[in-house]
């Protein structure tokens, strides 16, 4: 393995490591903030500082721990204590109070003690690739832990409460985003690194995962502020729509169309009445300006503080995308002996974009002959149901019927066509009308049937590249005989 390959492998291992460091730092910063809040002090160490402590713990375990062997636990404990002291003294207030003794210094910045916790957690991630169970436990315990910390932190008086809740919201966003992604990458590494799995080859997966995660968080932040109101409204109004949905699912297709049309009419009428209709004017309420400085609402505070978390998460995501983009240019690892070919093959799958494109409405056939011709054009898109070259209308209809096509109407329509075209007879209006009705029914049912046939055909198709090696066939071929 060349230096470039080693570098590439290290970079692939790096994203989950960075993410887990950030996640650890996020929840530990909430604990630090909580301790500070209970001591009625503002928080002094945030996620970046804690992340440095976690990284220090990881690196020291990786570099020093292996060399020390059995002496490492004692050294690690000492290291933790030293870092906790450093964390306390990171605050200027603590350093100033140190002259009065250790107790006052500790009281000035008790949250600094969690620096030792950060180092301890860093020890857990010393090995690469990361342990899936460790990261899963981090997410499983951190999620309710953060909720609990927020709940406990909410009982302290202002202004510490609002500040803490804002910080906790930012940290929670960073935590959940980083931990979920770290867990995904760690799982991928655990699942298939040895079998040639490389997530860099699947940017669609990475993009969709990041998009969904960020979208969920972005949607959750405002929702958290209005969730109480929304929930009460939801419970109040859910009964009616649920009743309607329940009824609607029992209706047939026509009834559902009617209800939809009436609903659209009602909405349009309502909009028109609102736009053009004049309503009774009510005098505006007299507003009084507040005398003191305007206090931001809790929602505004939450949103502001959450923005920081989102930005941090966004930065992490951007780094991931850059790594993915850059590494796609890198060569695949050379030690993988398997020859692999990757192609994007849509096969005969329908283009999903076409579903949203409005189709030009074709004119309906005027008679049975036109109906038959239009039906053939429809069926040409479905090979199992299409008419073969040199196949007469009657043969075509008979073939489909033998194959299990759902109706006899095609035979009748083909007979109408033959009577008109081959025998030169003039069809009556009633026959033409029935022909058009048959076209309407057949174009849908035969298409559905053809699609089902195609699915069945692909599911049960034999592998033609491999000759059968059945025991009985071998017996016949080799002339084996029972001997007794």
């Amino acid at each position: 393995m060349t230096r470039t390959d080693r570098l590439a492998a290290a970079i692939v291992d790096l994203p989950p490591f960075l993410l887990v460091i950030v996640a650890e730092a996020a929840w530990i910063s909430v604990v630090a903030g909580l301790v500070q809040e209970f001591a009625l002090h503002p928080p002094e160490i945030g996620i970046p500082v804690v992340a440095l402590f976690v990284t220090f713990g990881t690196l020291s375990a990786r570099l020093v721990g292996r060399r020390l062997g059995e002496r490492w636990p004692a050294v690690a404990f000492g290291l933790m204590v030293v870092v906790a002291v450093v964390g306390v003294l990171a605050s200027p207030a603590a350093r100033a109070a140190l002259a009065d003794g250790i107790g006052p210094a500790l009281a000035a910045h008790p949250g600094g003690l969690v620096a030792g916790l950060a180092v301890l957690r860093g020890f857990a991630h010393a090995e690469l690739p990361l342990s899936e169970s460790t990261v899963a436990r981090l997410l499983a315990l951190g999620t309710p832990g953060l909720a609990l910390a927020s709940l406990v932190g909410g009982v302290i008086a202002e202004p510490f409460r609002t500040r803490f809740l804002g910080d906790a919201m930012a940290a929670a966003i960073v935590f959940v985003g980083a931990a979920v992604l770290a867990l995904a990458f760690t799982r991928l590494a655990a699942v298939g690194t040895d079998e040639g799995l490389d997530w860099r080859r699947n940017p669609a997966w990475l993009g969709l995962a990041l998009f969904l995660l960020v979208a969920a968080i972005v949607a959750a932040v405002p929702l958290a502020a209005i969730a109480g109101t929304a929930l009460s409204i939801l419970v109040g109004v859910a009964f009616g729509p649920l009743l309607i949905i329940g009824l609607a699912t029992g209706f047939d297709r026509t009834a559902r169309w009617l209800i939809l049309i009436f609903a659209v009419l009602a909405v349009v009428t309502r909009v028109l009445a609102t736009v053009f209709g004049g309503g009774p004017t009510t005098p505006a309420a007299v507003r009084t300006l507040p005398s003191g400085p305007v206090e931001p609402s809790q929602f505004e505070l939450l949103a502001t503080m959450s923005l920081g978390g989102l930005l941090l998460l966004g930065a992490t995501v951007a780094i991931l995308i850059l790594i993915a983009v850059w590494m796609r240019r890198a060569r695949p690892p050379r030690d993988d002996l398997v020859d692999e070919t990757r192609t994007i093959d849509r096969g005969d799958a329908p283009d999903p974009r076409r579903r949203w494109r409005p189709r030009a409405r074709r004119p309906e056939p005027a008679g049975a002959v036109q109906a038959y011709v239009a039906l053939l054009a429809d069926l040409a898109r479905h090979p199992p149901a299409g008419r073969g070259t040199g196949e007469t209308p009657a043969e075509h209809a008979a073939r489909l019927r033998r194959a299990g096509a759902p109706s006899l109407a095609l035979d009748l329509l083909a007979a109408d066509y033959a009577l008109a075209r081959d025998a030169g007879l003039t069809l009556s209006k009633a026959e033409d009308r029935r022909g058009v009705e048959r076209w309407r029914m057949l174009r849908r049912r035969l298409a559905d049937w053809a699609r089902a046939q195609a699915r069945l055909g692909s599911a049960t198709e034999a592998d033609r590249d491999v000759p059968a090696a059945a025991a009985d066939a071998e017996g016949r071929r080799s002339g084996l005989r029972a001997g007794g």
Partner: protein
Amino acid sequence: MTVTAFLAILLLLGGVIIGVPVAVVLAIVVILLEIVRAIWSRNGLLDVQYRRTLGRDRITWGEEIPVAIEVWNRKGLPLAWLRADDVASPGTIVRERSLIVGGRGLGVLRNTWTLAPFERVIRRFHVGADRRGVYELGPVDLLVGDLFAREAAAATQPETARFLVRPRTVVATGIHRRDRWGGTDRALAGLSEDPSRFAGIREYAPGDAVRRVHPRASARLGRPVVKVFEPSRDREVLIALDVQTHAGAAWETSFDLEEVESLFVVAASIARSLADERASFGLAAAGYHGAESRFAILPPSEAPGQAERVLDLLARLSSHPSAPFERLLATISRVLRPGTTILVLTARDPARYLGHLRRLEQSGCPIVVVACGPNGDRDAAHARAAGLAARTARLDGPWRSAGRLVVGTVPAVTRAEAVAT
């Protein structure tokens, strides 16, 4: 609903009721993860096509079969990972990968992919085996992960692909076969010639049959000449393979696998040698071979492909006997034409079934015992002492690396010892 989803909903409701926005945000994300998992568990394996294509279905030991494993995600959902555990018969060797122990306790060829929407990936492997036999790949267990790489759905495809690994063949010194009248039971002339193979003409000599005179050549030359044919050789040989290598009863299942494989290499090499001489040959053995019968009997034939059929049968045969060899001899005496030479390949002392061999010879089937076990000289001497023709056959090394099969005769000293015994 999973336990995690239930707890997340509780957390959401608790966060809303108590007024803890952090809990709401966390709960929403966890619910999202659960929804994603539900979607992928329902649709993850939908429209995923797994196909295994073997380049050949038969190889000789030491060769490899190119195998293409193709997986196609025929839908718009990306798959973070898709794992396929292809169960492989014990002894299967994949050049590019090591087999691992799968969930069924069997060796599996494990492949993992990450698949974009509509992505088709083909991986090419080379598969062989550590000894002759019938090998299978499949069924395959498919496992898929959701968007956040959590295990979401599993399925099993029962299709299997089978391939044969024929025993190795090495160059064999020819087994001298007696001159006999080609394919008939009665001697019609004094010389052993095959009347189907015209060789030329010679001068007429008194005593030559009139029907051997070549009229046109005699007229052209002005003196009588007679037709000369290629000398005839014994052309029907049945290789009777004694699968049992130990001296005990046939139902005892203990056997030395290496010794058995050596025996099969000897059998395959002799079959190949007979095919090269365009002899009519077949195979009989008391071994399990995939059919209902306990005896595998391939009648002698010189048709094209007979060597391949014999090698296929040798590939299929079990390493332990399905019945006593004596019963096989009794069976083949009923199905063989008189005059067919029976080449008995054995790796043990034939004393147990010498009586059967003598009866076969008395019925018109010449017997040649080829002793190829570790005590081949002694075993062959026993056969010679019983009045049967006997040879020794020995590979010039372990069966995996041997380059030649040496067929010899029995040393006189050993024979004398055997007679004395």
